């Protein structure tokens, strides 16, 4: 991990002609054909046939530290992120203790600095202990070293409409955004699986689409009313897409994300009651999947966010109703998007760069990520081999958890290398330090 200069030879910056990218001192210094390695005193990375993307940015990552280091730590989670092509992740606030004070967000931020695999941008809780009643000290977190701009009670919905209004208003003072986990708690009491044919057949309590859509609609109206930024986490239904499209058509300050799993998987996978497919919001129907893909393609949904949710084995080796919600996603996200969006012709690689790096960085208020690959830009980039033959997914072991719903599923492509400020965190698909 020395400050070597690099020439990335023959990669294709999404949407452009193949060429070379020179990296020095953490910055892209030159882009062009046949750059001279001697002149740059650079190590050459042969990247013929690879796509160069600005380093991926995840708006929604559960790193579990502090508190659940048995499931993941900042170090193992960011290692998985690097392997997936990410250079920045937003660490969700539902840790133990909750990231609801300047102290906890600074702790997470410092752990990210120490790990060094990817920049860790802590997300602050909206309410104290995610209790849904009392605003956390949002300003203190914003002013802290962690420089928090995204606030979320993710895992729980800020269900109280008045509190949601206040939170939206309050963060205007420091250009914050409230990221809502849209789930009406009353409509989802005991809910286990998307309410529909599968939930009826399997006898699992239904999680109705309307429980998400009702909150999405309400919060879009609130965001418009107070003129503050709302971000909708893990949009999962066709109805939510329609509402967000409508809100955006009015010019309201609303953004949205979709997870890789909601772009590829449906509730039919629950048929064997394997809780590896239990996630919140739940997997929906193929009609929802199609609508989410279209919305990501046309920009109604701004970003792909993993909702990487690691859990120890015993949390999933249980009855469905007992099992923990969530699935890992950092290492597979780009391959899933390749399969769901690129192979289907819905998005080109420039579009992938936009939805997985540029826009999430903008929503997360990160200035050093998601910048186009140009001379002078920070050298945060991902090299991806789109032609790598489809291979069955198996957990790399970087994450402490193995609850991937894609295990055994053949996905195309391969993340070859990840550079964080000019330093490779991943080369040849492996972490540069074990």
């Amino acid at each position, binding site marked *: 991990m020395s400050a070597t200069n690099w020439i990335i030879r023959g990669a294709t910056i999404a949407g452009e002609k193949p060429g070379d990218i020179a990296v020095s001192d953490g910055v892209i210094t030159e882009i062009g054909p046949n750059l001279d390695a001697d002149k740059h005193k650079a190590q050459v990375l042969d990247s013929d046939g690879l796509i160069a993307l600005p380093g991926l940015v995840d708006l929604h990552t559960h790193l579990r530290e502090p508190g659940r280091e048995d499931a993941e730590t900042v170090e193992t989670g960011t290692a998985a992120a690097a392997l997936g092509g990410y250079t920045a992740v937003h660490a969700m606030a539902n840790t133990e203790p909750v990231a609801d004070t300047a102290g906890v967000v600074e702790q997470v931020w410092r752990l990210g600095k120490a790990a060094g695999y990817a920049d860790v941008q802590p997300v602050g809780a909206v309410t104290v202990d995610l209790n849904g009643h009392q605003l956390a000290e949002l300003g203190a977190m914003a002013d802290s070293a962690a420089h928090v701009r995204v606030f979320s009670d993710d895992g729980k919905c800020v269900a109280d409409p008045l509190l949601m209004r206040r939170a939206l208003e309050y963060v205007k003072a420091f250009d914050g955004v409230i990221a809502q986990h849209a789930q009406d708690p009353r409509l989802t009491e005991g809910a*286990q699986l998307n*309410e*529909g*044919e599968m*939930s*009826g*057949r*399997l*006898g*699992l*309590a*239904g999680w*109705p689409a309307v429980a998400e859509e009702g909150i999405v609609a309400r919060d879009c109206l609130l965001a418009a009313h107070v003129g503050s930024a709302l971000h909708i986490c893990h949009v999962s239904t066709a109805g939510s897409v329609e509402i967000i499209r409508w809100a955006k058509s009015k010019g309201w300050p609303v953004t949205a994300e979709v997870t890789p799993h909601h772009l590829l998987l449906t509730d039919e996978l629950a048929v*064997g*009651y*394997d809780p590896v497919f239990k996630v919140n919001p739940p997997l929906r129907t193929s009609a929802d999947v199609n609508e989410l893909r279209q919305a990501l393609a046309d920009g109604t949904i701004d970003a792909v966010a993993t909702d990487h949710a690691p859990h120890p084995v*015993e949390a999933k*080796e*249980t*009855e*469905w*109703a*007992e099992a923990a919600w969530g699935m890992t996603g950092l290492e597979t996200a780009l391959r899933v998007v390749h399969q769901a969006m690129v192979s289907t012709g819905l998005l080109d690689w420039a579009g992938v760069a936009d939805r997985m790096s540029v826009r999430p960085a903008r929503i997360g208020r990160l200035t050093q990520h998601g910048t186009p690959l140009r001379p002078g830009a920070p050298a945060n980039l991902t090299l991806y081999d789109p032609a790598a033959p489809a291979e069955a997914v198996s957990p790399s072991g970087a994450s402490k958890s193995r609850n991937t719903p894609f295990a055994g599923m053949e996905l195309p492509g391969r993340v070859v290398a990840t550079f964080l400020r000019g330093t490779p965190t991943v080369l040849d698909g492996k972490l540069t330090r074990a």
Partner: protein
Amino acid sequence: MNRHLISAEDLSRDDALLILDTAEELASVADRPIKKLPTLRGRTVVNLFFEDSTRTRISFEAAAKRLSADVINFSAKGSSVAKGESLKDTALTLEAMGADAVVIRHSASGAPHRLAGWVRGSVVNAGDGTHEHPTQALLDAFTIRRRLRGHGQTQQGLDGLRVTIAGDVLHGRVARSNVLLLSTLGAQVTLVAPPTLMPLAVGSWPCSVSYDLDSELPKSDVVMMLRVQRERMSAAYFPSVREYRRRYGLDAARMARLPDDAIVMHPGPMNRGVEIAAEVADSPRSTIVEQVANGVTVRMAVLYLLLGGAELPAVAQ
């Protein structure tokens, strides 16, 4: 037949008929002074009950014992499960003890599916959450066939019979299993419930749906009343027990609307005075006591077929 009996959905018509016909053969055993067959001698059946259900447990216990199997009753209360042991660890324990069949009752839908992945023996679902209760459906089918087609019938389905199932379909595992099994056997099933107690996507099930019990009764050869739990009232599924009884309870006046030969069934335990009036439960149309007796017989057939016991004396071919 599959190695397990987890869902009525897994049973083909031939599988279902094989179980009913085997039960028919075994029914004669119940009339003998010595009700025991040696067919499962040396085999171990574990009754793994995470939910209290004395009636189902003793039915399985009697069935296994009449086939001479060794029976181990494992109930969650006071066991390691109550101390937080996982289903998987319980399964591994049973596996180590050499269970040939595990009869599982669990409050979580799908628990038998999970168990089947962790044990080598056969898994029999004795009711999982709000999912299924396949042996209840089999004993109901057996009861219907005996009552309406006569004792000793084999190879016959329930073709053309009109079965109305009324009550809490949403949370009802008996309703799910019966819809699947009875329709496989050729019956026309109609579900009746207030819309709040009907699954949203019930339209995809192999049955008709109605919200009006009175209009269905004259068209029913069988009416099956399901237990309605009083606690559903507090969750606003219906306004009051009184209103539920008025709209969906089977009383004598409603029973009079049934065709002459129609039968009334209930899987028990009953809420007398809620979904079923005492004079209906105790009427000659009621099969409720027969259902209990048939339960033992049908469960004998299931255990016998799953465990591949020695040939039955009466079914030598």
